[in-house]
């Protein structure tokens, strides 16, 4: 079956820019299924938890669709799991958006509101292209990581009012500055990569993240086939 394109399940919980994510995957040579089926998620070669929306609604939707345990199972299975924007935040322990909410708890950490400062023209939500730089957990030049091939200081597209503070510093793959706040804009731990920015909306630099995902999926499939 190694001649077929690897299959990504994009989790559909009624929210999110699923089409954009799907198109970016296809551009990178991946097959996609947009699904809220537990079986389809568990059968896929990789899973993307996308992200537009409010944290509390998203968690309620995942619980209602009974998708919390399959996403946790994927995280534990070694299959690539990619969280984007809200999908990144959902992986964490809890969020303070519209009152405190528990997250999936796959990664230790919390989700906090970005501060605004009108006198310095710091707006919230932060909307736009901001730079990502190597985080404390990043290998030199991001080699071998999901950001391999992305230049240090590349601009990525973000739209968010909240940011993630992971408990584990060494999971922080990239950092981004918003005024005085330098926040973790992506994390990487084994099979899990998640970013506050939208790789599917970040032009060619963002698409390289999907190409890296495809390479990891092919590598993993080949190992399994052997």
């Amino acid at each position, binding site marked *: 079956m190694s001649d077929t394109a690897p299959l990504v399940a994009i989790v559909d919980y*009624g*929210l*999110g*820019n*699923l*089409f*954009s994510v799907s*198109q*970016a995957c296809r*551009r*990178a*040579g991946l097959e996609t299924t947009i699904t809220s089926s537990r079986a389809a998620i568990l059968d896929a070669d990789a899973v993307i938890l996308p992200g*537009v*929306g*409010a944290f509390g*609604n998203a968690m309620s939707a995942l619980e209602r669709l009974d998708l919390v345990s399959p996403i946790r199972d994927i995280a534990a299975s070694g299959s690539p799991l990619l969280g984007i924007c*809200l999908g990144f935040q959902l992986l964490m322990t809890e969020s303070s958006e*519209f009152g405190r909410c528990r997250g999936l708890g796959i990664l230790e950490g919390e989700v906090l509101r970005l501060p*605004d400062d*009108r006198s*310095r*023209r*710091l*707006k*919230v*939500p*932060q*909307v*736009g*292209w*901001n730079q990502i730089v190597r985080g404390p957990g990043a290998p030199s030049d991001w080699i071998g990581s999901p950001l391999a091939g992305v230049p240090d200081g590349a*601009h990525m*597209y973000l*739209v*968010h*009012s909240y940011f993630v503070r992971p408990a584990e510093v060494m999971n922080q793959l990239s950092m981004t500055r*918003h005024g005085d706040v330098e926040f973790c804009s992506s994390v990487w731990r084994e099979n899990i990569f998640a970013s506050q920015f*939208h790789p*599917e*909306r*970040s*032009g*060619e*630099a*963002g*698409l390289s993240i999907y*190409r890296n995902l495809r390479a990891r999926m092919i590598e993993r499939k080949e190992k399994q086939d052997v």
Partner: protein
Amino acid sequence: MTPVRLIPRLDVKGPNLVKGIHLEGLRVLGKPERFARFYYEQGADELVYMDVVASLYGRNNLLDIVTRTARETFVPLAVGGGIRSLDDIRDALRAGADKVIINTAAIARPAFIREAAERYGSSTIVISVEAVRSPDGRYEAYTDNGRERTGVEALEWACRAAELGAGEIMITSVDREGTAKGFDVVLTAAIADAVPIPVIACGGAGTVNHLSEVILAGHADAVCVASLLHYGALARGVANDGDDFSEGNVEFLRGARGPSRRQGVSIQDIKAHLADCGIKHRPNSTEVSIV
């Protein structure tokens, strides 16, 4: 501040990219998806599609254009015109939009902003404020592409929209729109200084200097540019060949009216100008690789 965004705005009527021309009505410029792709490849930071007649006649085929565009462009895409309900927002997002732009439905029922923000996240909801200057210097919000008065004061409305959960405010000066005489800097600064959320200036760009002016003096977080870029794109040969233009005012495309007096610019021209002015922006990637 976050780097300023440069956003080509594509006004769509039916299958066509159009441009409102004083006393002439809507002029057909070409196929919107071709321009969108051209701008993406040239380094546009975001794209805006505005269905210019949806508020009048109900929904049309804009979402098909959105879907085709989202297949080949990988920057944010905002869609406006005729968004009236949570279902409309869902449909736009599912078609490939990242954000929706709302005016009429939000003024008619402000609680719609909160419902939309709670359901889809503030960052998905852009509130469009179309402002007309009154003789006393105040600005009134209009709807339906500047055709209908609301009696609502524009600055108060922008603040209220932000409180209700809007993620961005797009300000269009109806007086300046299509004039190429520059943005309304006073209006833009008043709103940008009053709201905690990003403000997109729209309507009136005639030169690159107008853009730096509305960023530096108008405190805009993003700028929308329409005909200034469209005429530049046409001059640079964005492909319209082989397309079927059987709808709308196509005299301009057929060349019967001759070239526009308006000079167009490219995205690179604008970014070079921003760099000269010391304005933070996303530098153009060197080239777009083909996969």
